[in-house]
């Protein structure tokens, strides 16, 4: 069995009185594709934010890629996000007045230095070679989400987080995006954690966990 890229013990997150994530023990082996399901408000996004270094836990321990996220300073955490994690959201969060290729270059810039040729290649790889200069507003939802994928993987993250990336897409676009992710994952061997409400989407992964009111209630291994 591969080493765990994520390891949590009694990971907890409270928002005041609300306990969004009850003490959670979770291990994700390197290279796994983990789907996360659960009702609205069950703490899925909370978990993703903690694992991605966007938020800090209230209690418990959290190791990602051998790093103790609780011990990191703000700078260290920013660096961790920059170099280790790629994130795709339901809302695309693209800069509306920049073209697709510039949006990807922006991620390069925050990571190190921009490299247009490489950004173009990344967009060609997600099948957008013909729409490099278009702004997000001129792209379809599926295309926007593919720009987001290009942006998320441009810095070669070890961990790709998706928070309902296909939530706004129709069936055809969803299949397209998921196939693309699968293809990229098989090439680059990154670990994926993906939140979804869609059983069919979850089936792309290796394993699915179910959260309910901040508690891991069930887990299911896919057999594909």
């Amino acid at each position, binding site marked *: 069995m591969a080493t765990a890229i994520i390891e949590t013990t009694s990971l907890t997150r409270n928002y005041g009185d609300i306990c969004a994530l009850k003490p959670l023990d979770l291990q994700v082996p390197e290279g796994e594709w983990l789907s996360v399901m659960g009702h609205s408000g069950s703490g899925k996004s909370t978990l993703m934010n903690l694992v991605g270094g966007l938020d800090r836990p209230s209690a418990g321990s959290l190791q990602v890629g051998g790093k103790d996220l609780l011990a990191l300073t703000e700078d260290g955490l920013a660096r961790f996000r920059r*170099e280790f994690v790629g994130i795709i959201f339901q809302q695309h969060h693209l800069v509306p007045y920049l073209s697709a290729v510039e949006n990807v270059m922006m991620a*390069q810039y925050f*990571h*190190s*230095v921009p*490299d247009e040729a*490489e950004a173009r*290649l*990344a967009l060609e790889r997600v099948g957008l070679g013909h729409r490099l200069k278009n702004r997000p507003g001129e792209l379809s939802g599926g295309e926007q989400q593919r720009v987001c994928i290009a942006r998320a993987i*441009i*810095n*070669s993250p070890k961990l790709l987080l998706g928070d309902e990336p296909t939530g706004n897409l129709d069936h055809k676009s969803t299949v397209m995006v998921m196939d693309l992710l699968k293809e990229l994952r098989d090439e680059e061997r990154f670990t994926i954690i993906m939140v979804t409400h869609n059983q069919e989407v979850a089936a792309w992964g290796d394993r699915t966990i179910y959260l309910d009111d901040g508690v891991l209630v069930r887990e299911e291994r896919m057999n594909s």
Partner: protein
Amino acid sequence: MVAIKLIPHILSWVGIVLILLRGFPERKRVVAVAVGAGFALGVAGTFFLFRSFPGDFSFSLIRDVVGGSFLLLWGIAVASIYRSTVRNFPLSWGERFFASIFFAGVGAFMSGMIAGAISVCRLGTSGGMLMLLILVLVACVLVFESLAIERLLPPSFTVSNSALMAGVVALLLFSSSSILRLDLFSPLSMKVMKFTHDFVHQFFESMLIPDHLFIHIHLWRYIGLLFGKEVGFWGGLIIWFAPAILIALAISFERLPSVAHIRQGAQRRTVVATAIRARRFRLVVPGITILVLAGAGYQSRFPAVEYWDPKPIVISAGPSGEIVIPLKGEVDLKDGKLHKYLFSQGGKEARFFVLMTPTGQLTVDLDACAICKPDGYGQTEGTVLCYYCKTLIPLETVGKPGGCNPVPIHFTEKKDGVYIDGLTLINTWSTTVQTTARVKEGSK
């Protein structure tokens, strides 16, 4: 009082030690010992130098050493800009030399020695051995402090060899520029001015351009601009700052490492970004160097010396047209100090001074020389100083004509006082000031 005097020197000492420590990160201990030992030896050596050769010789020797290091910096700057832009000549032996313990040790030792010598020039030797011993002790304590401070500097802050040299030399210049007789900036701008002056003259002569009235009246206005103090000042500034600027440019032109072999884009970009960041950090010292040089240039305009600069006493001639200044009146003319007078007659004025030279001779001179704008003279230990060109004229030679010496005036010394012919005085002043005004200021 002594401590205040030493502030610029202490600041530059700490700066020099810090830059040296960062410049040789693997040899900190050697550098610390060498720089401290150099300082001690510099102090002791200068002490004995002043004992053996009191006066100008010692000062000019130390000034030449500082000037030599500036010339060396010029060489390094030109080489480094050439290397980073034109051709990257192989310097593996040179780099091995720069990295050697020998270079670190000798470099630090020399820097310490010059810094020590400059500090003694500032302190003077009158305080005796004890004072100098304290100075060395303070310097050594500061070396230890710098070792601690250096550890607090961010690790990404590195110093390249050329920047190391630039920083140390600039700090030495900063330290020396507050001492009138070690200052290099004023003589430099003076040299530049003299050079342009001579150049234009030679040019006119070699081109056989006649001294026609047209040229005199119309062209001189523009040519005169070349003789202004500004030319010397700006020319001096360029020579002053160029090495540091060249070194900064050389660093910013440095090639980035080749990354074509790295397949993963993110990794490739990380290498590039790291190199750019490191290069930016290496620019910090040249940047500071430019500021320090600016500070040195500024200081040299206000050297920390107490002048004897009396206000001219207004005086007039008797009915015979003769000025009589009593030997022992309000002032004692023979006290060895500069006594300035302002004489006016018929709407014309002349400024002059009376001084007894160390050889015991009275001399009467214009408060102006034959070549500079008549800004006048001040007196410092053993010399008078031309305010305009900052040339120091030993008191022994005051009363002799030539160069920037004050223009001597004929006088007769009688029992009761000094007798000067008013008309001659006014005429000499007018002709002197007219020529210098034309040459220096154009036809204003």
